């Protein structure tokens, strides 16, 4: 990354500010516990020792929205829960991202009726959709890595426009 090859191991790295900011955001993104239904169990399995998510920096699942950057909506969202979801999303500080995990969060899933919101993107803007019912922990990790690539490609001018 830059001029350090010429200077040897002087401990200096040169790069762009955007790369550093995006790198730090991806390396320690803290997810917020938002497990609703069955996908929450696969999210917990992804957090457990077999498919470890803490190697991606997500060691802690913060229950408080004020201290988290990523909201993984895992499970079916019912109409009674929808205002609660929006309120929690509003309480998260910028920058924040949303992963819709599972079919029910992406598009309503198996349930096409009066009680389930057909896709969480009716309530909050979603960055990555992970398909599956429930998605395997490896699929969730793939979704998280896709989000990391999206974050690494973010530019400051987009953030300023928001």
């Amino acid at each position: 990354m830059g001029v350090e090859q010429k200077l040897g191991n002087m401990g200096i790295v040169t790069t762009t500010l955007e790369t550093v900011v995006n790198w730090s955001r991806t390396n320690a993104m803290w997810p917020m516990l938002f497990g609703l239904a069955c996908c929450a169990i696969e999210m917990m399995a992804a957090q457990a020792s077999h498919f470890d998510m803490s190697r991606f920096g997500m060691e802690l699942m913060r229950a408080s929205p004020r201290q988290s950057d990523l909201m993984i909506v895992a499970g079916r969202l019912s109409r009674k829960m929808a205002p609660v979801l929006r309120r929690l999303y509003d309480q998260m500080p910028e920058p924040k991202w949303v992963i819709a995990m599972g079919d029910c969060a992406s598009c309503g899933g198996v349930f096409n009726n009066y009680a389930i919101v057909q896709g969480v993107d009716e309530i909050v803007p979603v960055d990555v959709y992970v398909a599956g019912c429930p998605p395997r922990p490896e699929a969730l990790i793939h979704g998280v890595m896709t989000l990391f690539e999206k974050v690494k490609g973010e530019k400051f001018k987009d953030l300023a426009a928001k």
Partner: protein
Amino acid sequence: MTQIEEVSLEQFKHLVSERALRGETMLLNMGPQHPSTHGVLRLLLELDGETIVNAVPDIGYLHTGVEKNMEAKTYLKAEVMSDRLDYMNPLGNNLAYCMAVEKLVDLDVPPRAQALRVILVELQRIASHLVWIGTFGLDLAAMSMFLYAFREREAILDIFELCSGQRMMTTYIRPGGLWRDVPVEFETAVRNFIKMFPKRIDEYEALLTKNPVFLDRLVGIGKLDAATALSHGVTGPTLRASGVNWDLRKARPYMGYEQYDFNVPVRTEGDTYARYLVRVQEMRESLKIVEQALNKLPMGPVISANRKFVPPPRSELGVSMEALIHHFKLWTEGFPAPKGSVYSAIESPRGELGVYLEGDGGPKPHRVHWRTPSFDNLSVLPKIVKGHLVADLVAILASIDIVLGDIDR
């Protein structure tokens, strides 16, 4: 739909005692999103300092409208939704639904299918209790318990994936038997699990059962006596820890449970520690049943041969005209069920899981009602937390073992 409403004490007047209206006690909302509520459960707590005066559960945050949605689908297609109700026990839900359908249309199940169903459902029971013990330990800050339990659970989910291709929502148990026969590696995988698992339960017991912190936090907390439990309709390990010996596998045996030799753990204290001990012992008993069923596994077909209700195997479609007609009719329209209603119940890891199924002569059910155990088990919560601290509430709620998908359907 997304407006924030202002609430005032007026709305809760009939739920709380008068001390709250005078301002002596504090009303605290343990909201739907909370690390210890095991799902989206909202508890309205009335606290006097740290002691609980009253706790009112508010459910419905996961209401999925499954009962109405199942009325719009044929009997076979509706089974897909049954997995997702009690999501810790999808094979159990499938079994309850299939038993109700088989009772309604009077369909036979071959013995090999019955034995395999027993093996899978008991493995599912062990998996459900493992998640319970993991989250129980997590709530009481024994986080290593969570990691151990999920490591064992991966072994069971690998067995399910071997049979059906899916880890959790398999829909493997169909009316008439199973979807298809288990592969050859199944027996080796289950035998390896049987060999490995008893030592792991010993590890968990060594970590938790005589642990002084655990004993301090659990003994004498949340006492539930038998009369209250029966009046509230509590079933399962919660009832058996209060002294009532009622297990549907012994009282009303189904799927050949009478052939297997196992005990039903019952304790009389009725507190949280008793519920913990009952469930750990149940894991050992389930393993015994799996071993016996695997040793006695008969040969034969895994699904009923009654072509009016069970689709024929694909190999027959090329040679037989009737098979083609049955296949077409079953997959487009579904099979008709007679007019009448049945109620059939199994013993799920949480209690009595019953299905009330009513047919009206057509291919779609007229009414499907799920009698789910967590609904009644939760209704007893306000009675047993009175006078305890908020930290005890967390332990009691974890020990009742509720699954919100079961409650809200």
